[in-house]
């Protein structure tokens, strides 16, 4: 059996992530007795496949917003957070892989595409794993803090994430 090309393997993983997301969202909604959620999930998957056929990243980004709204609605309607968390991580991974596949297709010549794909997948795995751990911790923790501490934490989140991401992006651009 011939080995998969890097682009083909990215496509397969993207499909797998989309499948996991769709399965988790549908399962979560159906277990709660909300069948319309499963229908909406199916509609989003169909739109996703349609967008892939057209190859527009903007459509994927709009659809990501749709998945986000579905996740928020699910949490509000009492769908188990576990399904939403796994499903949302899946759709984030699928979105990232779709974008990566589009960029791979647009580059004419690559010296070592296999290594590039492997590096990207390692990073994606790390980020998804961290998201799973932190998301689970947030769901399990159930902390009780007062309004002042909440406001302080919000300020820290805004400052640290903006400055941290800004530093990293700025220096990465300079390094390029």
């Amino acid at each position: 059996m011939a080995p998969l090309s890097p682009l083909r393997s990215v496509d397969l993983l993207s499909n797998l992530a989309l499948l996991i997301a769709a399965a988790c969202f549908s399962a979560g909604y159906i277990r709660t007795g909300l069948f319309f959620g499963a229908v909406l999930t199916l509609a989003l998957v169909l739109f996703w496949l349609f967008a892939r056929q057209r190859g527009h990243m903007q459509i994927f980004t709009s659809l990501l917003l749709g998945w986000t709204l579905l996740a928020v609605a699910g949490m509000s309607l009492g769908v188990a957070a576990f399904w939403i968390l796994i499903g949302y991580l899946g759709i984030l991974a699928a979105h990232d892989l779709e974008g990566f596949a589009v960029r791979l297709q647009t580059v004419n010549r690559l010296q070592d595409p296999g290594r590039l794909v492997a590096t990207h997948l390692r990073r994606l795995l790390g980020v998804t794993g961290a998201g799973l751990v932190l998301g689970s911790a947030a769901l399990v923790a159930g902390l009780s803090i007062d309004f002042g501490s909440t406001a302080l934490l919000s300020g820290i989140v805004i400052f640290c994430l903006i400055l941290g991401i800004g530093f990293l992006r700025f220096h990465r651009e300079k390094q390029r």
Partner: protein
Amino acid sequence: MNRQRREDALLLFFAGLLALTLLAGSLDRLTLRSAVPNDPRFLGELLAFRQLLLSPRTLVLMLTCFVPFLLITAYLILVSASERRRQQQRRSLLLEIFLWMLAFASLRFFVDSGLFGRQNGGNGVDPGLQLPDVPEINFVPQVSSTASLFTGLLLILLLIFGAWMLWRRLHPAPILVEQIGSQAEAALEELRSGADFKNTILRCYAEMCRVLNQQRGLQRDRGMTPREFEVRLWEAGLPAGPVSKLTRLFERVRYGANQPQPHEEREAYACLEDIAAASGKLE
């Protein structure tokens, strides 16, 4: 990025993620109560504070704090020799005026919204008035939920704006030669990864024009030839040899019908490396 800066950035990032996790884990148990206290003595102090905020003295104080900043900025604009610096100072002046108006509007909003007491109940309150005997006060909060939402959003926007300003201050735009070197390195990276050579050269050249315009206020007029622009690049401190070679290559790619030959590709590659090395960024 050097090791220290990378560690600082990662530390900030992880601190933000940790805070976000704690915040996410606590939001569902957060209970929101009215921000207006029921203690009658504290209410009296709030009413007195409201009177102080509304007084002409406060307005004069705010103006006194603001006017020196305004005058200093105006003076700097007048005496500044560089057009780029004048532009920055004009922006600073606009920002100062905007911030002062925002501060004044916020103050009026908070006072008028009734956060510091009822609009009609504030006059003639003696700060020393003894109120502990009042058994119960049936206080109706004056701030609507819309006003609270608006204020919260405003505060979040101000926080984001403050973080952005802090980041800009901590990280001023790199000097011209560094930026040009960065663009050259980006173009090199594209070449290594197999991007279209012709487009890479055109993009690199266009980026250089843009950076010169941004950093030095030098606009490449429609009538300016690549050769004239080459002189500008020398003036910016870039090495003459590679810049000249790259300019010739640009001319051939831009105005010639033929595709670049392999030896031209190698030549351009070397020029870009030299330009990047000149900025001290290529190891």
